[in-house]
């Protein structure tokens, strides 16, 4: 059953979503929410999904306060009024590991 959620975007993704910091999307799972986002903002496709259609590895996704890696990733169930927060992975280091 699709529900409405609020999706918070990091600065780096806002230009791909009309410049908005927060957008609305619908879906019963995170995958459906992402699909709806891409329907509205096709430019987000490559930032949300990898080429296999799974979650992009350089993306952190939180459902309210929880990292979706521990909630089933794209299969995580979303509820009405939930907030999905997208953030870039922040990583690097002295030597490729």
């Amino acid at each position: 059953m699709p529900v409405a959620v609020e999706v918070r975007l990091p600065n780096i993704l806002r230009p791909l979503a009309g410049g908005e910091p927060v957008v609305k999307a619908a879906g019963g799972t995170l995958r459906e929410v992402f699909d709806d986002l891409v329907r509205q903002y096709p430019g987000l496709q490559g930032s949300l999904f990898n080429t296999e259609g799974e979650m992009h590895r350089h993306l952190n996704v939180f459902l309210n306060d929880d990292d979706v890696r521990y909630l089933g990733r794209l299969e995580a169930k979303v509820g009405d009024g939930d907030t999905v927060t997208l953030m870039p992975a922040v990583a690097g280091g002295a030597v490729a590991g």
Partner: protein
Amino acid sequence: MLVLTQRSWDVMVAHCLDGLPMEACGLLAGQEGAGTQVLEVYPTANAARSARVYTVEPRDLLRADRAAEAAGLSVVGVWHSHTHTPAYPSPTDIAQAPDPGWHYVLVSLSDTEPVLRSYRIVDGAVTEEPVLLATLPGGAVES
């Protein structure tokens, strides 16, 4: 240019020293758009727990982002340590730089005194920027 308070400098360097022998990392917050003045720093865990690479712990990233927003600020950059190499972005740092608008601060612990430098990384091009230590409101001295 990046403007830091002495307190921010101290917190960043202390977090890097505390993290030894692993790389340490944290996030910088400032006013969006006027992102040269760092107004808050948030030490974070290195989820990679490595002396060679770092990943800002995702929960700490969310916490810092929310704290910055509550203070009317935005995350404007990241700092991390290089334990045995100079304070210059590595190929890994450059390849994984998440945001061209951010400041990328490196703290090298390879010498007797910590060395802190700041860079912009845009489309793989690295440019060092001056770091100023603010001593008084409205006043700054170059580090």
